[in-house]
């Protein structure tokens, strides 16, 4: 199943104001992988994410999603393949009711009404938001908004899920529920996040960005234990790998 593959070769992108956000990024993500893209603020995570479904086009280098390169002609296909969940649910939920919002994508794909209906129901069921169907999105809590945002993407049956800061602004319980839910998804998943504990839970592989370049790409556990690399990329060890300040345990030992 080659259509779940994402392959970037020497991606470069410079913003109109001269900021060079990506300076030659290459990676290959294969079917079913769950990958974290981590790095400091301004490292290029968001820019990279915007390339993955054609909100931005690479200025040089190539990006292949599945069998096709990202071009203006393949845009529809690629947007269908890649489901993008934005950081702020208020940007993602723009329709009058939750139902309309989840139906927005499938209707634009030109699916027949019955199929749209059943897809909406299935998507809402997966995220546990069936009871919110008729509610207006601005009345939902943060956790509910996030769940519905994910449903709006699931209803298009994407092969690849891309999420920008999925746990931002969530209370611990909602965050935990979200993580448990994401664990059950069989899609190829890409997360851009600062929540490194989430990375530890969900991603077997991490790509570390720094100033528009990939500085590390490998198993999450190895990367999270590489103190020098983390410090150099303005990151910190996930809390769970740090020693407990109350019950003691030498900090020096925690990393080894």
């Amino acid at each position, binding site marked *: 199943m080659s259509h779940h593959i994402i392959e970037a070769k020497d991606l470069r992108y410079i913003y109109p104001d001269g900021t060079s956000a990506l300076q030659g990024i290459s990676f290959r993500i294969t079917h079913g992988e769950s990958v974290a893209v981590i790095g400091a603020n301004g490292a290029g995570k968001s820019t990279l994410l915007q390339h993955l479904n054609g909100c931005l086009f690479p200025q040089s280098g190539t990006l292949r999603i599945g069998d096709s390169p990202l071009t203006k002609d393949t845009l529809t296909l690629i947007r269908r393949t890649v489901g993008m969940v934005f950081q702020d649910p208020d940007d993602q939920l723009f329709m009058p009711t939750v139902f309309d919002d989840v139906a927005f994508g499938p209707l*634009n794909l030109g699916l027949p009404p019955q199929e749209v209906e059943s897809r909406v129901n299935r998507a809402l069921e997966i995220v546990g938001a069936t009871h919110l169907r008729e509610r207006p999105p*601005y009345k939902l809590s943060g956790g509910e908004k996030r769940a519905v945002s994910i449903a709006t993407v699931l209803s298009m049956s994407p092969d690849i899920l891309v999420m920008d800061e999925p746990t931002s602004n969530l209370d611990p319980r909602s965050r935990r529920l979200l993580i448990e839910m994401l664990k059950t998804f069989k899609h190829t998943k890409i997360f851009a996040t600062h929540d490194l504990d989430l990375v530890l839970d969900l991603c077997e592989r991490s790509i570390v960005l720094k100033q528009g370049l990939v500085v590390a790409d490998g198993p999450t556990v190895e990367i999270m234990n590489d103190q020098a690399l983390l410090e150099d990329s303005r990151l910190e060890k996930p809390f769970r790998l740090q020693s407990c300040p109350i019950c003691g345990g030498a900090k020096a030992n925690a990393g080894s």
Partner: protein
Amino acid sequence: MSSISTHAYDLGTMDRLSRQDTSVHRLDGRAKLLTTLVFIVTVVSFGRYEVSAMIPFFIYPLVLCSLGNIPLVYLVRKIIVVAPFAILVGIFNPIIDRQILTTLGSAQISGGWISFISILIRFTLTVWAALTLVAITGFNAVCAALEKLGVPRVFVVQLMFLYRYLFVLIDESLRLVRARSLRSFNGKGSGIRTFGSMVGHLLLRTLDRAQRIHQAMSCRGFSGEIRVLRPASFGLGDVAYVLGWSVLFVGLRLFNLPHLIGNGLTRLFA
């Protein structure tokens, strides 16, 4: 600051009222919209000195509010909020138009006062009807009805987005206002200059958000047309609703009911 949040809360109340399930709530949005339009057109079409013939028209919003379980006090308060506009429109009539039209006991009443009262009644009727329409239909359903009746989609989509992001905008401006008031002391920092920069900020943020929303829409296959899945059924009940009310309105427009009753009573006792 508090007044903005009160208004936001008020919008929420309107939304809540529109989600009830009563006989008038269940009617098709188009039927209610059309009837309201007929109502407004008939009321507005009365002559400038007409007062008594418009009184029976109060039956329409009254019936809808009671059937739709809409608290009268709530709507009346909303009407009072916008009343100054109507008062401003009519307040000069008594000064300009001093011709005596009628007498009430020994008091002479000029045409100006009558047309002023006529304007106020008209205003109350039309605003009340429009508010009731939204309260028993819901803003988005009114938009959907507009679209189905052939209003250009661009306008309808604009309205829908306006309503959707009004809440976000209010939240954002409240945060700005709060942040300013926490760091302004003795009236310093709350002048027009800071206000200007705040409005500018709000505009820039809004533009940013608009761009992100557009991206989110494109990501889900948006190509210039908003598609909504909503089974619409304009049934016999809806037809009867529109026709019934319209006939009543036109009848009340053609025949001055209070006048007829008055004449009848006079003849009875004469």
